[in-house]
């Protein structure tokens, strides 16, 4: 197996995640796309760890999973709060700071 197989898979997933973050209107969808990007990074971590025969790659991947879990908890709470205040989770409706 080539190292690049995994790195290119990660890059493709990351770009799909970027598209999702930029193009989607629903705030929950934006959070889901961010999860996709974090996963794309994780696969790079594990692949490099395997390549260099160090365990740190897996440890970093685990830390990223933990941070992603914390992020999605707080993120969804914020989305819920936005929905309660504006009765909408369309990211285009949140333009209070637009000049």
């Amino acid at each position, binding site marked *: 197996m080539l190292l690049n197989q995994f790195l290119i898979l990660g890059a493709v997933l990351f770009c799909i995640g970027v598209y999702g973050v930029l193009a989607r209107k629903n705030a929950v969808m934006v959070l889901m796309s961010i999860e996709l990007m974090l*996963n794309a990074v994780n696969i790079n971590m594990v692949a490099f760890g395997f390549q260099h025969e160090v365990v740190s790659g897996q440890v970093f991947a685990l830390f990223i999973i933990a941070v992603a879990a914390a992020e999605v908890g707080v993120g969804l709470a914020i989305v819920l709060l936005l929905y309660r205040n504006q009765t909408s989770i369309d990211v285009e409706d949140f333009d209070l700071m637009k000049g």
Partner: protein
Amino acid sequence: MVAQNIAFGIISGIVVFSALRMVTTRNIVHSALFLVAVLAGLSGQYVLLAAEFVATTQVLVYIGAVMVLFLFGIMLTKAPIGKSMEMTGTQWPIAAGVALMLGAVILYSLIDQFGSDRLTEGGKIYRTADVGDEVFSTYIIPFEAISVLLLAALIGAIVLARKD
């Protein structure tokens, strides 16, 4: 190695297809379920890379916990269940252009840098016990920090979402 390459090909095909459908489908619940397919496929890729504990954690934390949280988020925000034309904003061509250009840059640099580097065969395989040893020796301080972070996120989420 041939069997692993075939497994890699099949799983990546499923993962990339599901990811594309996830960001393009008009039904938000389908989108969440496609994300489950992506996460499960990536768990398979971790097994191919001999990272058993990461694969297990991926299934437990992402598919088990995070996806349930997302489905609750979808329900509580009363997003239109079923087809909705309004899922993608009008700026999607720009977003696609940005993503394509980013992808081109990353792919170019990856191929330029790593070309045909092969994965180490017959190298040391780190099992769950080795990962545990490393976390609780070298990375003990980051581990404690992340414990506090999770606690803070838990309390923060409750404070934010609770009705006064």
